[in-house]
């Protein structure tokens, strides 16, 4: 697998080779495997091992950056020369901030599992075969993935930063398709393969596909919706890059711009970025080597703050919150460990409290229609159901929504506990009134 000492020694060697005033080395290494199934068989099955370094150098205030997957001595020398050559054609960087000195990072529990890292293709196949057999037994067609991977991120610089992080990740996701072409989808994600629950995922997807059969078509209009956590994640993740980073905020193109201290969502909505949540396997440092801080973004509906890297912090005369993305870039920092605080109700209680509404598994092809108002469009997918008199009564044909996320998050009536949805967001299920559907989809 990997050897942290060897990696850091390699990066130290590159630092020593550099004649720049300041040098930063970002290193990624990893190995991943993904078994993909469709038509009730394994149709694709892949494995990849790779590593790369990004060398960022400063001569004075002039920057150069080169990324390479070739780590032999001559290739590294060439990359360094190319980065230095870039500094000669650049102007002084108006946003120049010196590379940071050595930092201390808050400890995180280990999120590296040897079993996950070395999972064999036969083991993945056996898990998939169980899902396929259940699909055949239920007369549905299975498709999906089972992936396992490990990864290492290291960042060092000539000022003394030495940051290293390793993690593993396993995911099982499946879409089941019924004889009536209705679909059900579910997934699970964990750093530890042993904690993954493909059996429950399989059963949920099968049940959704079957529950959608003999469904109905609803007229477009405004409905009360109950969004499962994955559907909330689809919407909530757009907040991150549209408005919760300092660059969008400072440029005046964020819904947070000019609104700090003002209500922008309902009083029951609190959103933070928190890499230290147990469910996140991300590094406790950012791509400048700064420690990641826990940042409250929205508190009880009020805009509280955005996340910063060193450049945007300098512009705003504040401190970096440790949310830099790989440099150089023109888009600035983003929160990448979003936690939307949940409530105490269960999904069943939300359904029972609803006279007429729509239950949504997740959304598909979500895109921005209006960035400042965070108006998105997209479609329900893999399980949308009609709720009548407190019960799920039948499946419905997928529908297109056009909805401001800010408005939706002002109309939240009930929330469940929050759960991880993928690797970068933790969300509750939400009951939301006045959610706008503009069309019915489907041939």
């Amino acid at each position, binding site marked *: 697998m990997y050897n942290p000492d060897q990696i850091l020694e390699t990066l130290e060697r590159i630092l020593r080779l550099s004649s720049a005033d300041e040098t930063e080395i970002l290193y990624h290494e990893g190995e991943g*495997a993904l078994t993909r199934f469709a038509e*009730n068989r*394994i149709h694709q*099955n892949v494995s990849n091992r790779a590593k790369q370094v990004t060398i960022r150098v400063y001569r004075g205030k002039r920057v150069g950056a080169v990324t390479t*997957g070739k780590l032999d001595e001559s290739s590294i020398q060439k990359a360094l020369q190319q980065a230095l050559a*870039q500094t000669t054609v650049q102007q002084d960087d108006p946003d120049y901030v010196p590379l940071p000195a050595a930092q201390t990072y808050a400890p995180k529990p280990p999120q590296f599992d040897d079993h996950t890292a070395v999972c064999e293709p036969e083991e993945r*196949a056996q898990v998939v*075969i169980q899902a396929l057999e259940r699909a055949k037994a239920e007369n549905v067609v299975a498709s999906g993935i089972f992936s396992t991977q490990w990864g290492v991120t290291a960042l060092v610089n000539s000022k003394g930063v030495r940051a290293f992080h390793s993690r593993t990740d396993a995911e099982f996701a499946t879409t089941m398709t019924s004889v009536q072409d209705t679909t059900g989808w579910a997934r699970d994600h964990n750093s530890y393969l042993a904690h993954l629950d493909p059996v429950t995922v399989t059963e949920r997807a099968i049940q959704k596909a079957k529950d959608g059969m003999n469904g109905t078509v609803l007229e477009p209009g405004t409905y009360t919706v109950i969004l499962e956590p994955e559907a909330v994640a689809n919407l909530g993740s757009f907040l991150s890059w549209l408005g919760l980073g300092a660059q969008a905020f400072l440029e005046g193109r964020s819904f947070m711009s000019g609104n700090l201290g003002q209500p922008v969502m309902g009083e029951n909505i609190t959103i933070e970025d928190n890499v230290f949540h147990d469910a996140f396997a991300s590094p406790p440092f950012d791509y400048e080597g700064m420690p990641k801080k826990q940042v409250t973004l929205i508190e009880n509906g009020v805009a509280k703050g955005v996340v910063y890297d060193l450049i945007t912090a300098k512009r705003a005369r504040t401190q970096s919150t440790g949310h830099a993305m790989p440099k150089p870039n*023109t888009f600035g920092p983003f929160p990448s460990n979003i936690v939307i605080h949940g409530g105490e109700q269960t999904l069943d209680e939300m359904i029972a409290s609803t006279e007429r509404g729509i239950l949504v598994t997740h959304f598909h092809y979500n895109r921005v229609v209006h960035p400042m108002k965070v108006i998105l469009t997209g479609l329900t997918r893999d399980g949308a159901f009609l709720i009548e008199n407190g019960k799920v009564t039948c499946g419905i044909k997928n529908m297109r929504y056009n909805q401001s996320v800010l408005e939706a998050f002002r109309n939240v009536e009930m929330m469940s506990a929050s759960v991880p949805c993928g690797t970068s967001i933790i969300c509750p299920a939400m009951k939301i009134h006045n959610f706008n559907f503009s069309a019915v989809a489907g041939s």
Partner: protein
Amino acid sequence: MKDLLKHALDVAQVNGATYADIRIVDHEIQTINVKNGAVGALRHRTDYGFGVRVIANGAWGFASSDEMTKAEIERVAALAVKIAKASALAGGRNVVLSPLDPVEDVWANPYDIDPFSVSLEDKIELMLKADAEMRTVKGVTITESSMVCRRYHQFFASTEGSLIEQTITITGAGIICTAIQDGTVQVRSFPSSFRGQYQTRGYELVHELDLVGRAGKCAEEAVALLSAKPCPEGVMDIVLEGSQLALQIHESCGHAIELDRVLGYEANFAGTSFLTPDKQGRLKYGSDIVNLVADATAPNGLGTFGYDDEGVPAQNIPVVKDGLFVDYMTSRETAPLIGQRSNGTMRANGWNNIPLIRMTNVSLLPGDSNLEEMIAGIDHGVYFSTNRSWSIDDKRWDFQFGTEIGWEIKNGKLGDMVKNPVYADNTVHFWNSCDAIGNASEWTLWGTPNCGKGEPSQVINTGHGAAPARFRNINVRRGA
């Protein structure tokens, strides 16, 4: 190189592969992003590695690595076979490849000026000039200009005897201007959104784009949009500008004709397709004037190549002929399932991914009309230009597109600029509503460099030729 390629294939066969291929890829990309009068990001990236794809026990396996040593090639080739044998444990249909004559060839796309031969100083100067030109317009908030130069050098070899060396050189550039006022954000891009125009060409493309010359108009339109009137709403006639129509083709035709989607391979991710095999040769996809092709041979196209990543020669395939849906894009595995041979559309993003069926240059052939004539034939409608948002369902049927800018059409003439225009429809109604297509002089082969598909996700370059076209009775509304 030949020895390494042969050794990988030998190891795969010794381990039990009945078929194997290997791709060794050396990839180089240079990106320049200028923002608000300064170079915001200048990057140079290279990667190099190989991937071995095999069939063993009737199933696929693939493994890849960036360590180009004999020992690693042996490990990876053996691992690919081990993975294939694990795939076979699940049973199901055995993989059968459509026949292919082995070929030995060297192929590269032509260009006039090697984009890597142009100095960084010259490139940066041009980007800064375009940026400065946009900033001369009062009311502009954010200005961006970008350029990408890319070279993809690949060796392909298979156990069937093919040995192909292919080099693809790509250049792209564009500008974006953003105006912000009172909670409103308006954007104009030139010559297209997604950071401009991209083609399999050299630096001559950048010269032709004349970014500096077009920057002022781009900025003026962004500012004018802040006070433009809202888009009219209702069912009306519309004209789509070429780059918007290119994305319309990409989403509602290109993805829908990928045979792997049709067969359910993407059901868990990208989705499937309404174009099921019973519709081949039967469905009236569009009006009689609609002729669509998937042409991997088109000069300069971003989806142009000599051979696909299975070694199948590039082809020009009629997809929709006189409005009738006639063919899919296929692979060596999927084509036999509909009684055909592969038409050569399998491509991988890099050495570390398997090839998938990907759009080549899926294009609407020119018609006999022109923009002025099309607008003259509309009493009340909207002219849509430059994509801003795009969304389509998982079967490629129901869609909604928004563009950066629109102009109201009244009594056969282009009228007021309108902001946040959106149109929505279903694919078959839309294409059957097409009653005029611009002629060859208005036709451009646009590049779309950001097409996503597959798990693990792969982003690939595609091309789409289009001239402006007119569509009758389309649902139009305002996006905000």
